[in-house]
């Protein structure tokens, strides 16, 4: 549990730095998820009822997986934001939605996977290889 608290603290720092990058680099929304094998089966499945995804295209947030933790482990994003997970550990990990909404599949070192959140809600997830690694995304 101590590990998780630490990662939360680190996460807050990461949120701010990532947000800064997001707003300066929002035009380059190259689909990095295409680099990730297995993406096809778990592509974006949400349809935004407001069409907000169009307006917010380009919002990107990176979540780093390191030392067996998601950083940041708690994050609040706007509808239409693209989350990219990148694994910086030597061990493989996944980001698997508890409610089966998304699943990165196995990410080996430096592998990435992206998912666009087009629906509001709480999206808890965990690593299917190391289920003690848990995190949450809030989409507003």
């Amino acid at each position, binding site marked *: 549990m101590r590990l998780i608290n630490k990662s939360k603290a680190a996460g807050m720092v990461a949120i701010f730095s990532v947000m800064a990058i997001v707003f300066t680099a929002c035009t380059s929304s190259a689909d990095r998820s295409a680099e990730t094998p297995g993406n096809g089966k778990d592509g974006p499945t949400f349809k935004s009822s407001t069409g907000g995804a169009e307006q917010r295209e380009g919002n990107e947030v990176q979540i780093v997986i390191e030392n067996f933790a998601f950083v940041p482990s708690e994050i609040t994003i706007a509808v239409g934001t693209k989350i990219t997970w990148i694994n910086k550990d030597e*061990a493989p990990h996944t980001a698997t939605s508890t409610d089966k909404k998304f699943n990165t599949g196995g990410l080996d070192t430096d592998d990435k996977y992206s998912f666009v959140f087009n629906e509001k809600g709480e999206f808890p997830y965990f690593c299917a290889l190391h289920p003690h690694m*848990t995190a*949450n995304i809030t989409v507003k």
Partner: protein
Amino acid sequence: MKDQNKNISGNLMRPPDVEPKVHDRREFLKCMGAWAGTGLVLTMAGGILSSCTIGDAVPGILSFVQISDTHIGFGKDPNPKVTETLQSLVDKINAMPTRPPFVLHTGDLTHLSKPEEFDTLQEILKGLKTDQIFYVPGEHDVFSDQGEEYLKRFGKGTLGKGWQSFDHNGTHYIGLNNVVAASSGPTPGSFKNGGNEGLGALGAEQLGWLAKDVAGLSASTPIVVFTHVPLWAVYPQWGWGTEDSEQALSYLKKFGSVTVLNGHIHQVMQKVEGNITFHTARSTAYPQPAPGAAPSPGPMKDLPAGQLGKTIGITQVRYLERDRSLAVVDTSLG
């Protein structure tokens, strides 16, 4: 589960009519100090666990061999060549004076559950000189598809998600899957409270089967359980334990001799609790840090040159005729 290191009173594979001998603690500690050698013998000699280094002469008659955590598909430091180290260990097993009647693989066959990784593993193990290989899955074998590919290849003759039991020479062997229930993730609703600690789990269906499986056995039947994640709380912070293991072990309390073999933590570790001996095997691929010795349980990538062979290996379980007990012998690659 209480830690009973100060009161070791296990009785491994010993028929009830054999009078235990007493070894003093000094002798035990002297043997424990010799862990760094090429092999390690753990025997339950008269209620005291002893361990000594071994040379070429391995005592007892080979009962079976355990291999674990082959992680085919891993390709980084400290072992970019996991297929080669596995092949070397297979050669070592094939060179044993006695051919093992069977081999147990305690999971993490592959690194990422890829079909080609399973293919390579099966190809290498085809060369193993034994009658049969029994498998249980590790989380690396099931995380992407809840074990579908694994069961397609290794599920024949097993029940449910791959659990099984069989008898050999009067001993009852039980293979448990404690990774599928866990990889389905935290129980919905418990997420915020951390209701699931991320440990291995057996699940109600398998526990129900286990209770029935052992119900008709006499208490003098020696039991060997093999599974992937430890059935004792090695280090819950890293998920090194099984959340419902207590219930499983409660079904085994009546037996005079229970040996639990597992992998997952890529290092030799053992514990004796009453009539139950727990033993974790080395990986054939790479070592992981001692509990809490690193920020995370990832591979120990910065091994000094030439040290890899000492940290990976296999486990033999041997029958010692002299005192009618089983010896668990860990042999490293080099």
